[in-house]
């Protein structure tokens, strides 16, 4: 197992390297706009554009630029400076990360707890009214775009612009370290909105898996041995049925840590997603690179955690 983890960790670095190289090449060869021209304002003087290009190192061949970029990361953990506002990428990413992590973590807890609970109940009560109502609601939740759901929930339930003043509105996020109570209340509605579609999907996925698993021979054997139904379901059925959920959760959380653009936008949560969006709009290459590397790191790390978790969940899996 230790050798496997070390091997996978090495792959994390290889993958991050490959993704960073690809991103660099894509934005170098096919930039949506010339950063030097953007930086030079709306009446750019050719001499100024050329000087800015030289100053930012944009005149160097792409591999030289990439080498300098990697060198700064490895030697100084320096991801460069935003072309747009001259502020260090690392500083901006670190500044934004807690908000995204708070959003993703809270939403994940809600969607895992509610998705698994509803999925199990639906599977065990399959084809009953409860099952149909739960799965019908899940379908609605999956179909509702998060942006729309966010706006509707704000119009209905937020304290500033809503009809029923229950939850804090947009822009209510405060860091956990500043005020834990406000952090919780400010994120509650975004968590619920973001978790809705995921919870619905997980509930449907788990329901299907659990129904299949509960029909397996080893479940019949367990029952025949006289185990309680609760033990049969949770120890034997759910443990097997939940593995696809772990895979999906790992990837989803990894992706969300790279930024939940729509939720962050509607609720004005200053996270990575907004930063990525703004950087893409402004062709801010250092910022795009920094956030892509971060997102890649989270996704491959989440994958690694999922693979390790498999070994504990599924006795058939051995490394």
């Amino acid at each position, binding site marked *: 197992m230790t050798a496997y983890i070390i091997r996978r960790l090495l792959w994390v670095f290889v993958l991050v390297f490959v993704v960073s190289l690809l991103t660099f090449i894509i934005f170098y060869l096919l930039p*949506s706009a010339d950063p030097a021209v953007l930086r030079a304002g709306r009446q*750019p003087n050719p001499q100024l554009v050329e000087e800015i290009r030289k100053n930012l190192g944009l005149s160097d061949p792409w591999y030289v630029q990439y080498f300098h970029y990697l060198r700064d990361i490895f030697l100084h953990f320096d991801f460069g400076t935003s072309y747009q506002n001259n502020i260090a990428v690392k500083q901006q990413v670190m500044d934004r990360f807690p908000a995204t992590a708070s959003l993703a973590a809270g939403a994940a807890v809600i969607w895992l707890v509610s998705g698994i609970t509803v999925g199990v109940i639906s599977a065990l009560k399959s084809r009953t009214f409860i099952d149909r109502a739960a799965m019908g609601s899940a379908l609605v939740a999956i179909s509702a775009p998060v942006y729309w759901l966010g706006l509707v929930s704000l119009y209905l339930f937020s304290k500033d612009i809503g009809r029923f003043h229950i939850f804090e509105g947009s822009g209510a996020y405060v860091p956990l370290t500043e005020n834990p109570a406000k952090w919780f209340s400010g994120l509650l509605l975004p968590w619920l909105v973001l978790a809705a579609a995921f919870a619905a999907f997980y509930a449907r996925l788990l329901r299907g898996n659990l129904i299949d698993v509960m029909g397996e021979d080893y479940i019949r054997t367990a029952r025949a041995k006289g185990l309680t139904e609760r033990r049969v379901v949770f120890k034997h059925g759910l443990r097997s049925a939940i593995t696809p959920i772990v895979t999906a959760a790992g990837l989803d959380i990894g992706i969300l840590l790279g930024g939940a653009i729509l939720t962050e936008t509607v609720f004005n949560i200053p996270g990575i997603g907004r930063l990525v969006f703004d950087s893409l709009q402004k062709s801010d290459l250092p910022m795009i690179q920094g956030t892509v590397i971060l997102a890649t790191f989270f996704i491959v790390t989440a994958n690694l955690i999922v693979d390790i978790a498999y070994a504990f969940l599924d006795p058939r899996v051995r490394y």
Partner: protein
Amino acid sequence: MRKLLVALLALALIGAGCGGSDKKDTGGGNVSKPAAGAKKGGTLTVISQGDVDSLDPGYWYYQYDYMAMQQPTQRMLYGWEPDKTVPSPDIAEGQPEVSDGGKTVTIKLKKGIKYSPPLQNRTVKAADFKYSYERCFLPQVGNGYINTYFGNLEGVKAYTDGKAKEITGLQAPDDNTLVFKTTEPNAVIANANALALPCAVPVPKEYAEKYDKGKQSTYGEHQVFTGPYMIPRKGDKFTGYQAGKRIELVRNPSWDKSTSFQPAFVDKIIFLGGNDATVGSKKILSGDSMINGDLGAPPTNVLKQALSRQKDQIEVTPSQGNRFIGFDSAKKPFDNENLRKAVIAATDREALRLTRGGPTVGNIGSHFLPPGLPGFEEAGGLKAPEGLDFLANPKGDMEVAKKYMKAAGFPSGKYNGPKITMVGDDEEPASNTGEAFLEVLKKLGFNVNYRQIPHETMYSKFCQVPADQPEVCPNLGWGKDFYDAQSMIDPIFNPKNLVPTGNVNYANVKDPEIGKKIEAAKQETDKAKATQMWADLDKELTAKAYLLTWLWDNQVQTKSKNVNGVVSKFNTSWDVTYTSIK
């Protein structure tokens, strides 16, 4: 995407979809002046989508930079009182003294203006302006207008080529005298318009120089302030700024009200970025002590509701900018003036305006100078210039179009030449405008390869690159830098400004006669004469049909009920230093 229209137009209306009058309705009295008996104190919150472009005064150029940073935090040689259209002396003691046939401009400075901590004991000196202008030429600052308005200062070339350590045309003979020397008369320095742009924010060299070294200047994050407000700091770091999220401004203890025209009513101003346009607009309209920053007009449904129920909280002002369709006059078939006139004649400009929301979004344009700018009335005012039949009917006139098409060499009255290319913005409402104009071209027989692409790419890869420029760019616009027609006409039509990338001479105008007339107007220091010269140029350029100006934009501002909002005419946004809480 970003820079071009952001100047004024990126904040302009997005699909108001409602009727309205072209007349300005202030709702709550004169909003360019503070309310009588405006109260001091309180916290004003500004709801925004984005952030300032940079913290560096040398980089400020766009509307939100003025609103969030320049007006509240930094004084300049000259500033803009909200109800005035000429710059008022701020750190300067009075108007510029012009001598040597307009080539020398001398400015006396007020004494005793101080910087914010940590330089609270340091007074502003003339040398600080010399440095502030010099650093604006540095690539690590990346100023967007310095070459346009100050490019003819004596010694600029030697300085930018690295052959001289300072600009000889900028002189500080003593602490309170600043002298500009130019190689030709420079009207916008002489009339102080260009001295009310943010390179006129003083920068103390001995403090700032270390931050101006390296790839990009970091002076912005360490700057010292002269205005009524400042970003609070702890040691060397600002504690009141989080990029893209929040700017917090508190009172600057070094600011002396007796030397400033700004009243600075509120105690604290918080700019909150990252807001969604719909949610943000609703928050402002239903909340307290809030105004809009760079949110622009509320989305259609919110605006409609607000115009009927909360009219006092909505302010519509002309942006002094325009929207136009660009034809590449250097390429076939748009090198043919008659063909350009035919296309303009066939265009229903009212239909184009509807794609952005109808009359509320502004007046239908015909010539280039927008309402409010010197030369606008002289160039024809709200009506199309006289004698131009191809602009006579804002709904379009196919008969006139056919006449010009025949004159262009198409006897059938319809185009039957090679396929043309049009590249437009892929986002609404600009994409709707492009599609409406496509129908005009089709009606005239054009076979069009129409590509819709992201805003920034449209500019930086196509419409601003003459070598790759399509025949038609349907989503262009421009806003003034100050109340002088030069800032509208010179960049867009001067052949001197043709550059391989970042080109804003969209029509690729190469006519040397036009160039000569523009240069002459730029050097005219007599205001009345200059105004007439620019108006004549506007008429001539319109008659040559280089571009199709179809809209003179309005801007919509929103405020909470308890806010006495004051709009800066210059910046067409709220002036936070004049705005107060009821």
